[in-house]
């Protein structure tokens, strides 16, 4: 198992380098001249040329790419044009906020989506199943930011239950301010997970080994949890992992709606002020986060499904 994990980590390095290359290349297409932005309107052509040289902006693409990569290894993501401080520092101060929001989003997705799917499948075509199916259809089709707006209108402005924006202080304040954005962020994922769980449960429910389990006198609860769900979770795990990417993308919208002080909001601010290093830094950090989370999902996957482990073992040739 450890060998598998190590191997997966090793495979991560070229993918990360490629990811950063792609992001770096895309952002390089921008025609914003950082020197002009940094020096302001008063800058002379000479000053600009000097700064270009200083920042190495005239170097060939790959030189700049590898320099960026090298700096990244030291935790250096460049200097923000607007804040005039390190991008890494800006991101570091906001990352925990995004992590709290995204983490709560995943948590809600899993603890609501999976039971919904399981109960729906166990009681196929019941009222519960129908209601849950309608919920998943709407949940997958509703624009998350709009759901956020509606939640604010109902729960903040009319019922005054939760704050409409910002991040509250203290445990209670934080939780109160977290509830609406977390629901907003998790809605489409919850719908997705519920749907996947339901259909993979329905496949498993008819499996022969469920008959075997019944025939040996296993009780219904154990059959559902130990025999059905453990098998049904295999595809669900993948969906949860992939959904994390959707969630990170969605956090940009959700943080904007709720003025949540995280990376997503930082990206949008930076785009508006044409602060390219900040946008680049955020995109790189979000991509790394997504890739690392998916690595954990892959490892979890191997843990749930012994066949994956075996594949690796036979491919690796040793136990």
């Amino acid at each position, binding site marked *: 198992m450890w060998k598998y994990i190590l191997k997966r980590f090793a495979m991560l390095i070229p993918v990360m380098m490629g990811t950063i290359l792609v992001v770096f290349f895309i952002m390089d297409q921008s025609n914003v001249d950082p020197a002009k932005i940094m020096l302001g309107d008063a800058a002379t052509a000479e000053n600009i040329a000097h700064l270009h040289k200083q920042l190495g902006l005239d170097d060939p693409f790959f030189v700049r790419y590898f320099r960026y990569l090298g700096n990244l290894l030291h935790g250096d993501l460049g200097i923000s044009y607007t804040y005039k401080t390190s991008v890494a520092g800006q991101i570091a101060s906001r990352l925990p906020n995004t992590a709290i929001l995204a983490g709560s989003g995943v948590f809600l997705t899993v603890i609501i989506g999976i039971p919904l799917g399981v109960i729906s499948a166990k009681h196929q075509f019941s009222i519960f199943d129908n209601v849950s199916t309608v919920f998943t259809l709407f949940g997958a089709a509703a*624009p998350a930011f709009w759901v956020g707006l509606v939640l604010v209108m109902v729960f903040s402005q009319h019922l005054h239950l939760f704050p409409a924006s910002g991040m509250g202080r203290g445990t209670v304040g934080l939780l109160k301010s977290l509830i609406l954005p977390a629901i907003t962020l998790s809605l489409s994922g919850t719908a997705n997970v519920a749907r996947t769980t339901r259909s993979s449960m329905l496949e498993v429910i008819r499996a022969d080994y469920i008959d075997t389990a019944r025939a040996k006198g296993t009780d219904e609860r154990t059959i559902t949890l130990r025999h059905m769900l453990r098998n049904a979770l295999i595809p669900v795990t993948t969906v949860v992992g992939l959904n994390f990417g959707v969630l990170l*993308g969605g956090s940009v919208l959700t943080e904007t709606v709720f003025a949540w002080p995280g990376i997503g909001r930082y990206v949008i601010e930076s785009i508006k002020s044409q602060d390219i290093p900040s946008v680049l830094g955020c995109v790189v950090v979000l991509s790394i986060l997504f890739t690392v989370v998916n690595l954990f999902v892959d490892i979890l996957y191997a843990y749930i499904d012994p066949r994956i482990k075996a594949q690796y073992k036979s491919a690796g040739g040793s136990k």
Partner: protein
Amino acid sequence: MTQQGMKKATGMNEYQGRSLWGEAWHRYKKNKVAVAGLVVVIALLIIALGTIVIDLVTHESVYNELVLKQDIYRKLAKPSMQHIFGCDEYGRDIFFRMVWGTRYSLFIGVSSILFALAIGLVLGSIAGYYGGKIDNFIMRIMDVFLSIPSMVMAIAVVTALGTGTFNLVLSIAIPQIPRLARIVRASVMTVRDREFIESARAVGANDRLIITQYVLPNAMAPIIVQTSLYIGQAILAIAGLSFLGIGIQPPTPEWGSILNAARTYMRQAWHISLIPGLVIMFTVLSLNAAGDGLRDALDPKLKN
């Protein structure tokens, strides 16, 4: 050898292809939700095309009058008989803005997915058909693209290239390329080794002909289903970008950009938030229902 000759030689007849889709349509018709979805999608297409025709015929005078003209006396007017969806912060009728905005969501959504599909088809079918090193190379590159969350990638593209319509199409399309390439590859791989491909090869068809004439037509069903489901996602993404202010720019009446103003005027005018969102949701819902119906119709085994 002619293509017809080749088809005869390989024993693949037109009838089989038609009966698959005929059969699928027969099953599709029975699915009420899917038919309802399809009806809504067709209605939206008619609206989108209709407004384009009106603009062409009237040289946008109707557009200017109904959609762009501001009227301070109707500012944030609530829904009423005259303005069934109410008015926005400039006193423009939201109903007409939504009607004229249909084309952006629909056509940018469809064209970005078709664009992604075109590239995904090429990459996916090469990877799936040849396998081995080529497959490995292409799919590793796709993995790299997949490791960037699609909304994040779209934001990066729009930031770098700017907010034009074509850039918007690109920003939605690029993240979907690896997903579609994967689906194409998987589908091609299931068809690749079937007998009629062998026989096409035996009568001397070249690879390009085999892929375009034999492999892809038989691998299309799952690809079409997924493509139809991605269009809904694309529409949500466009609305999201416009809401953030980095999609379609005002005063163009894109659905998401109408919602952009909603947050500011939420207190005074609930209808600006509520109605455009509902329209987007029902549009995506209809597209998804139509796509799901198509999947069930094409592969009844998948239906629970």
